C-alpha cells in the first residue's frame, strides 16, 4: 500500500562556510565563519496537498527547497521521497526520482538559459528525461503549456531577454510543468506577476492538483496567496521551523509569538489606516544566532528559560506542531485573528 506521505524531511541542516579566504583569516586572526542556513528541520508532505513555508527573508526557505530537490546536499539529516532516501539511492534510482519532481526557482532571471529559445527551454525536461522524442508531439505540448500560462505559442521562437519579468516567470512555470511532475517545489512562483495573471497561475495549479493529484511545496511572502493555496503552513524562523498547522489554524489561531507578529505585519489593502505592526526588534544575525530560543530578543513573552534552553517541537494529536516554552507553559493568550 502507498503511504499517504510523499516527502519526508528528517532533521535537515545545511551550513555554508562564509569565511574569508584562508590567508586573510590567518593574517587578521579570524576564526572560520559558518552560517547555519537551516538547522534541524523536520516535516512531511502528503500526496496531493500543498505545504507552504513562510518566514522572514533569509530564514532558510530557499535553502530547504534546494536541499529537497537535491541541489544542495544537506549537512545533516535526510530527505525521503516516496520511501527512498535520496542521498542513499543509486544513480539509476536517483534519475528515476528526478523525473518525478521539478522546481520553480525564486529568480526567474537566473534560471533560464539566455542562449536557448523559449521552446527549447520549456521542452528541456521532456527531452532530458526521454519522456517525448517526437518533434511534433513536443511542439504541441509546448504550445499547450505556453497557452496555459497566458503566453502565446508564437513565443517559442523568442529568447528569454525579450520577455518582461513576469513573462519569464511564466516561462519557468511552463518548463516545470512540462514533464507532468508529481511533486513541484515552487519558490515564489508568482512574485513577479500581476494579480490577474497570478490568479490564472494559482487557478491552474489548483486545477492540476485536482486532476492529477499534484503535490506542492510552496514558498511565498504573500500571505494572502499562501492562505488561498495551502493545505498546511509551516512558519520558519532563523533556520528552524517554529510552527506548522493546517492553513485555517495558522491564520485564525496562531500560537507561536513569531507567527502572531508575522500576521499582524500584513499590508492593509482596505486602507483603514490600521497601522501595520512590523515584527519588532532587530533581525538576528545568522552568523551568531541568539542562545536558547533564537527568537527571544524579539519576543514579548521571553523569560530566562527562553534565553538558555531551545524549545522542543511539540506535536499535537492533529499533527500541528509548535516550539515555544510559553505555549507549553500556557503563558500565551490565544490570539484569535478575525
Amino acid at each position, binding site marked *: 500500500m502507498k503511504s499517504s506521505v510523499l516527502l519526508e524531511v528528517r532533521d535537515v541542516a545545511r551550513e*555554508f562556510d562564509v569565511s574569508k579566504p584562508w590567508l586573510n583569516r590567518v593574517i587578521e586572526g579570524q576564526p572560520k*565563519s559558518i*552560517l547555519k542556513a537551516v538547522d534541524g528541520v523536520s516535516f512531511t508532505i502528503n500526496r496531493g496537498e500543498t505545504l507552504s513555508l*513562510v*518566514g*522572514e*527573508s*533569509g530564514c532558510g526557505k*530557499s535553502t530547504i527547497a534546494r536541499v529537497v530537490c537535491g541541489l544542495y546536499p544537506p549537512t545533516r539529516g535526510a530527505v525521503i521521497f516516496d520511501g527512498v532516501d535520496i542521498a542513499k539511492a543509486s544513480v539509476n534510482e536517483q534519475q528515476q526520482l528526478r523525473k518525478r519532481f521539478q522546481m520553480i526557482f*525564486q*529568480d526567474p*532571471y*537566473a534560471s533560464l538559459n539566455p542562449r536557448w529559445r523559449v521552446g527549447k527551454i520549456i521542452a528541456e525536461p521532456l527531452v532530458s528525461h526521454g519522456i517525448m522524442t517526437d518533434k511534433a508531439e513536443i511542439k504541441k505540448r509546448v504550445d499547450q503549456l505556453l497557452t496555459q500560462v497566458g503566453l*502565446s505559442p508564437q513565443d517559442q521562437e523568442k529568447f528569454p*531577454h*525579450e*520577455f*518582461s*519579468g*513576469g*513573462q519569464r*516567470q511564466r516561462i519557468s512555470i511552463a518548463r516545470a510543468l512540462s514533464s507532468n511532475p508529481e511533486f513541484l517545489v515552487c519558490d*515564489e512562483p508568482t512574485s*513577479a*506577476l*500581476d*494579480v*490577474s*495573471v*497570478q*490568479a*490564472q497561475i*494559482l*487557478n491552474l495549479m*489548483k486545477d492540476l492538483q485536482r486532476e492529477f493529484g499534484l503535490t506542492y511545496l510552496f514558498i511565498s*511572502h*504573500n*500571505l*494572502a496567496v499562501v*492562505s*488561498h493555496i495551502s493545505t498546511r503552513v509551516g512558519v520558519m524562523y532563523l533556520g528552524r521551523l517554529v510552527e506548522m498547522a493546517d492553513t485555517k489554524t495558522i*491564520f485564525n489561531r496562531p500560537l507561536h509569538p513569531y507567527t502572531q*507578529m*508575522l500576521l499582524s*505585519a*500584513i*499590508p*492593509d*489593502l*482596505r*486602507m*483603514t489606516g490600521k497601522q*501595520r505592526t*512590523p515584527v519588532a526588534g532587530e*533581525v538576528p*544575525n*545568522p*552568523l*551568531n544566532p541568539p542562545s536558547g530560543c533564537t527568537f527571544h530578543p524579539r519576543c514579548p513573552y521571553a523569560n530566562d528559560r527562553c534565553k538558555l534552553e531551545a524549545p522542543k517541537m511539540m506535536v499535537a494529536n492533529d499533527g500541528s506542531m509548535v516550539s515555544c516554552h510559553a505555549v507549553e507553559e500556557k503563558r500565551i493568550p490565544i490570539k484569535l*485573528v478575525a
Partner: protein
Amino acid sequence: MNTPLLEVRNLRVQFPTRRGLLTAVDDVSLTIAPGEVLGVVGESGAGKSLTGAAIIGLLEPPGRIESGEILLNGRRIDNLSPEEFRKIRGREIGAIFQDPLTSLNPLYTIGRQITETILTHLNVTPDEAKQRAIDLLNEVGIPAADKRIDHYPHQFSGGMRQRVVISLALAAQPKLIIADEPTTALDVSIQAQIITLLKKLCREHGTSVMLVTHDMGVIAETADRVAVMYAGRIAEIGPVAEVIHHPQHPYTVGLMGAIPNLGEEVERLTQIDGSMPRLNAIPAGCAFNPRCTRKGEIGARCTTERPSLMNAGKTQAACWLYSEGVATNTTNTPQSVAA
C-alpha cells in the same frame, strides 16, 4: 501644483525585430512632483519596466525611444549622450531593478560595490564611505552589516540581495528613485521597513519615487497616485484611494477583483479572461477590447478608435465609457475590495 520633478511626454518605446516593429510603450505621459510617490501597476508585460528603463537611460538596444520627451527638473534627459547620462544616473536618479543580479557584480563584495558608488558621487573619504555603506545596509535591515559587507552577492538570500540593491540605489541620495518591484522578494515585515524608509526619504528629503509593483497592498500604503498600464498604454491614472476603491477603467476593475483576500475562502480566484495581446497584434481601437465585458455598451468605437485619457469619476481613464454622451453608471465598483 509644484513644477514636476519628472515629466514624461508622449513616450514611445519600440523594438525593431525580425518579426517587425514592436511598440512596447505607446504614448505614455506622466508627471511626478517632488516628494511624490507614483505607483505603476498593470499587466505583466505592459511596459512598466521599459518605461522605467527609458527614464533612467538604460533601454537595451535594439530597444529605443522612438518619440516623446523626458524632463528632469525641466531639463530634457532623453537626448543626453551616454557620458552625460552616467553623471546623473546614481546621483540624480537612482534605480532599483526588478532583477537584482543586473545591479550587482558577482565578483565584488557588496561592500566594495556600495562604497564605490558613494565615492563616485559624494565628496567623502573612503572610511566615511564605508561607514555610510554599513549604515545603509542597517537601514534596509541586513543584520550584522559590518561583517556582511565582506560577502559576495551569491552568499545572500533572494530578499537580502534585493535589499543590497536598494541600499545601492540610495547610496548617493538621488532626487528621483525608479523602484521596479523593490519589495517582491521581501517578507511583509522587511517590506514594511523598506516602505517606511522610502516614505521617510520622500518626506524629509523631498525624494520622488516611481514605484512599479504588483503588490496592491504596498501601493495602497505608499503611493500618492497610481498609473495602471495595459499593453504599453496608461489605462487609468489617479489618486491611490480612488483607483483602488473606485476603479473606472474596465481593466482596472478586473485587476482589483483578482486580488486574493486574506480570510476569504474561494475555490477559484477571479481572473480576467483571455490574455494581453502580443505586441505584434495589438487590436485596433482600445487595446483591451477583446477582453472587455463592457464594450457592448459603446459599440464600434471600441474596436476602431483609440481612447485617450478622459475624466472618469475622480480619476482619468482611457475608455470610451467616459466620453461625453455616454452615461457613466455605478455598476463598476469592484465587489471584493470595497471596504
